[in-house]
């Protein structure tokens, strides 16, 4: 091999190797540790925790110690079931509400005059760039007793006493819809903007009412956008921690919060790891949906 060719090969290897090694070290290895931790017992895995690895004899012993004890614990305890179910339900409701608000918005953006569209797009993305914490905090100011919402509604004479929305499930839903709405609008806008409008004219020419044209032409054609948006809202909502913690009440136990509490309050690292693994398993289906929507 000539010198420049050898150099080219080295460069090529370097480009791949550096990020590859980084990810093996800081993504895959930690993940393997979580998996191992999930199958360990609480007493042997308490911090300070050091991995024992001395040859294959210990490896066999190590493997024999792994079990699904924590998974059984999770399955037997109603608390965990309830929190997974509640997370899935709240994430599902968030997705539906975000779709109900996001679809008309994306539709109107796609129908707006061409020179407005880039501006509208930036306007949708901009709030997403401000800190997550700030956006949740803004809602605390609005929803808390005698907050802005109470002030406005009371001032209009619509309510006579505080609504007490903060620390309820409704507040969590509002916060999640608000935080993830751009994730719904962007893919919807992308599919609706590409939609061939002459199809709608054809439908109208053939006698379809606008509603019927929407239901039989626009809606099916925007399905990939709906699926992608739904997955992008649903996935982060399920594992959300900050919103249920700050806006939710004592009865909102979403799984991200359970994991956080197992880890920081109960200091049960193996159980926290098990909760994490099960959360990932729960997310496999929506992730597969997202992948399909991206390919479509």
């Amino acid at each position, binding site marked *: 091999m000539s010198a420049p060719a050898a150099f080219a090969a080295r*460069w090529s290897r370097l480009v791949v190797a550096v990020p590859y090694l980084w*990810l093996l070290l800081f993504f895959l290895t930690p993940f393997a*540790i979580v998996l191992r931790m999930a199958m360990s017992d609480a007493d042997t895995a308490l911090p300070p925790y050091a991995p024992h690895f001395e040859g294959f004899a210990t490896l066999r012993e190590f493997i024999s110690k792994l079990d699904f004890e924590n998974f059984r614990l999770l399955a037997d305890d109603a608390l965990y079931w309830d929190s997974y179910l509640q997370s899935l339900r709240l994430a599902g409701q968030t997705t539906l509400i975000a779709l109900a608000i996001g679809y008309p918005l994306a539709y109107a953006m796609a129908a707006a005059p061409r020179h407005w569209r880039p501006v509208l797009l930036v306007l949708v993305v901009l709030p997403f760039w401000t800190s997550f914490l700030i956006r949740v905090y803004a809602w605390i100011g609005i929803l808390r007793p005698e907050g802005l919402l109470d002030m406005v509604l009371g001032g209009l004479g619509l309510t006579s006493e505080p609504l007490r929305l903060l620390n309820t499930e409704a507040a969590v839903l509002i916060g999640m819809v608000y935080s993830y709405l751009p994730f719904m609008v962007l893919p919807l806008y992308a599919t609706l903007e590409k939609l061939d409008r002459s199809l709608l004219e054809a439908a109208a020419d053939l006698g379809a009412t606008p509603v019927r044209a929407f239901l039989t032409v626009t809606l099916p054609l925007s399905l990939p956008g709906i699926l992608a948006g739904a997955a992008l809202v649903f996935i982060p909502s*399920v594992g959300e921690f900050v919103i249920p913690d700050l806006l939710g009440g004592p009865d909102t136990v979403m799984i991200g919060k359970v994991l956080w509490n197992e880890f920081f309050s109960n200091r049960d690292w193996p159980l926290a790891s098990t909760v994490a693994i099960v959360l990932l398993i729960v997310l496999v289906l929506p992730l597969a949906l997202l992948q399909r929507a991206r390919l479509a």
Partner: protein
Amino acid sequence: MKRLGPGLILALVVGFAFLYLPILALVAYSFNASRLVTVWGGFSTHWYGALLSNQPLLDAAWLSLRLAFVSATLATGLGALAALALARHGRFRGRLLFSGMVLAPLVMPEVITGLSLLLLFVAVDVERGFWTVTIAHATFSLGFACIVVQARLAGFDRSLEEAARDLGATPLVTFWTVTLPLIWPAVAAAWMLAFTLSLDDLVIASFTTGPGATTLPMRLYSAIRLGVSPEINAACTLMIGAVALAVIAASLLLKRGQAVGG
């Protein structure tokens, strides 16, 4: 294009009001002279002055800025290399695993990313603080940086690189003189994205930090848990202003890049 009907205008107004009113309210109340959030006591910049004497908050902000700077630089370097690897180096062994690892942190719940990295740091027994959070942030924003750069690499004319190679430039020279100048706007945009992601993160930092390294979101989070105060509003307003400036700068950069590079 037809003009928008009243229904669509309503959809736009309702949608954008929902997105912006909460933030506007937050900004407005940062200028409230009264400590009570329910009472408007007149216009005042008092709370901004109070911020300047809040040393723990300032320390946290300075730490977060340094941390975001270092982690964004790392993430952009690694992400750009990853993008080059995926876009230019065709099929290499373990490509599927590689692209999976690049993209997985994008959809991974933050609690899991944080937990897994902490367990690694504990296992190798390093002191937790600035550098562990930096590594954690670089790892999770690497994927975002990679996507931004990859989109740019896909969009530009490869024959320019081939021409440089034909004229005898080594891959490294080709990269420095042809590829990098062309993808530069995307690299800058990727850096800003990684910077904001780091600045915004609460969950991963909470897991991977140690004593003495409290980031701004962690400080804000504990303040928010105690209740609403106009001082937090002022801090948030400053952050919103900084982010808005950065976003405008980034979109201008990307736009200019598109105009030049096609």
